[in-house]
């Protein structure tokens, strides 16, 4: 799993690390595959992604081209289903029923169940071996707070992987984050690092 909504809230330093590693045949769960040549888009160009599960790959035209050439498998989920499937995966739920997608092409092959007279679609939970996420600040225990709309999928991904690595702007001492404002409690977080590659008004830069 890789956090972010496009490049916003994406762990760009960790993604770059991934592009330098000799890893192939990856399954990536992320809303998008970055942009052309940015973020996860680099990993796509390197042909390290075998399969991607997400909701909006349109934002990187190279995904469609790779798909057309048969280089990548795609599993498309409505954005709310993508998020809820992670939530379920992180909360010990095997799957759930949702109205989203009923009667559409994205329902093909999925179980339909009537609840209170209305059709619902069965969706399976999602989990990952590793989640790479982006937060604003962490304390040394691993408690996380987020920044504005860079939060997006990050908190829910933090719950749904065996190993969770968080990239942050700053690591502070225990006690410096208010217990009331912590969004991701530390038990979800396994590793921390300070971001070296960040999204700014000028685009993606090293700091």
């Amino acid at each position, binding site marked *: 799993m890789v956090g972010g909504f496009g490049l916003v809230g994406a762990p760009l330093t960790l993604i770059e690390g991934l592009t330098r590693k000799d890893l192939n045949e990856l399954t990536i769960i992320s809303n998008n595959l970055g942009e052309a040549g940015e973020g996860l888009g680099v990993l796509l160009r390197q042909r390290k992604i075998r399969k991607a599960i997400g909701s909006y790959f349109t934002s990187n035209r190279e995904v*469609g081209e790779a798909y057309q050439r048969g280089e990548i498998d795609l599993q498309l989920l*409505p954005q709310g289903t993508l998020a809820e499937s992670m939530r379920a995966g992180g909360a010990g739920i095997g799957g759930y029923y949702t109205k989203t997608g009923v009667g559409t092409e994205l329902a093909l092959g999925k179980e339909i169940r009537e609840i209170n007279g209305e059709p619902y679609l069965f969706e399976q939970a999602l989990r990952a071996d590793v989640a790479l996420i982006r937060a604003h600040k962490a304390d040394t225990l691993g408690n996380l707070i987020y920044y504005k709309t860079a939060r997006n999928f990050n908190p829910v991904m933090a719950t749904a992987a065996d190993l969770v690595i968080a990239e942050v702007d700053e690591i502070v001492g225990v006690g410096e984050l208010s217990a009331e404002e912590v969004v991701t409690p530390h038990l979800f977080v396994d590793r921390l690092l300070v971001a070296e590659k960040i999204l700014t*008004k000028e685009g993606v830069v090293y700091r």
Partner: protein
Amino acid sequence: MSSIANVQELIAKRAASELKGPSVVNLGIGIPTLVAKYVKDELIHFHTENGLLGVTDVEEADPNLVNAGKLPVGEQVGAAFFSSAESFGMIRGGHIDVAILGALQVDETGRIANWAIPGKNIIGVGGAMDLLVGAKKVIVTTSHLTKGGKSKLMKACTFPLTSTRSVDMIITEMAVFSVLNEQLVLTELMPGVTLEQVRKNTEAQFVEGGFSS
């Protein structure tokens, strides 16, 4: 209605007049995004599915403060940020009063297609299906005709449907339709447009309501 931009502004302005506070409104990409600038009611709060309630105009662009179209936005005093899971819980859970969406096609029962085109890669759906299922009221804003001059209001959609749910209202640069009992009802002609022009440019069957022009 000389340019595309004028048409879009006209539609957005008409859509804005449908909104009454207190209300939580989600705006889609394209024409719907333009609606916000015509809304002055302080009791209308804009929701964006990437995790913000209280969207306002951008004051100083912050790359980490964006709407669902990844455009920079501002945050209202009293705004709240939340995760994607919580955001779509709000949407599916019926907590959004109005969603204003674009459409590629609308059928004569008010169902829409706005996420995929046959023959092209189907690689993006985003939040469209969730919004159609969960928003209490759905307003579609779209140009009446395709670039090729064909009616977007059709007997049946030839593109894949976004939901089996019919929308509540369709606003184009030619007319306003309400959807009642899965039937399009013409309720209003846009300024300078005649009933004859709407008939000629609309493939879908519609009922003529007691409209004003």
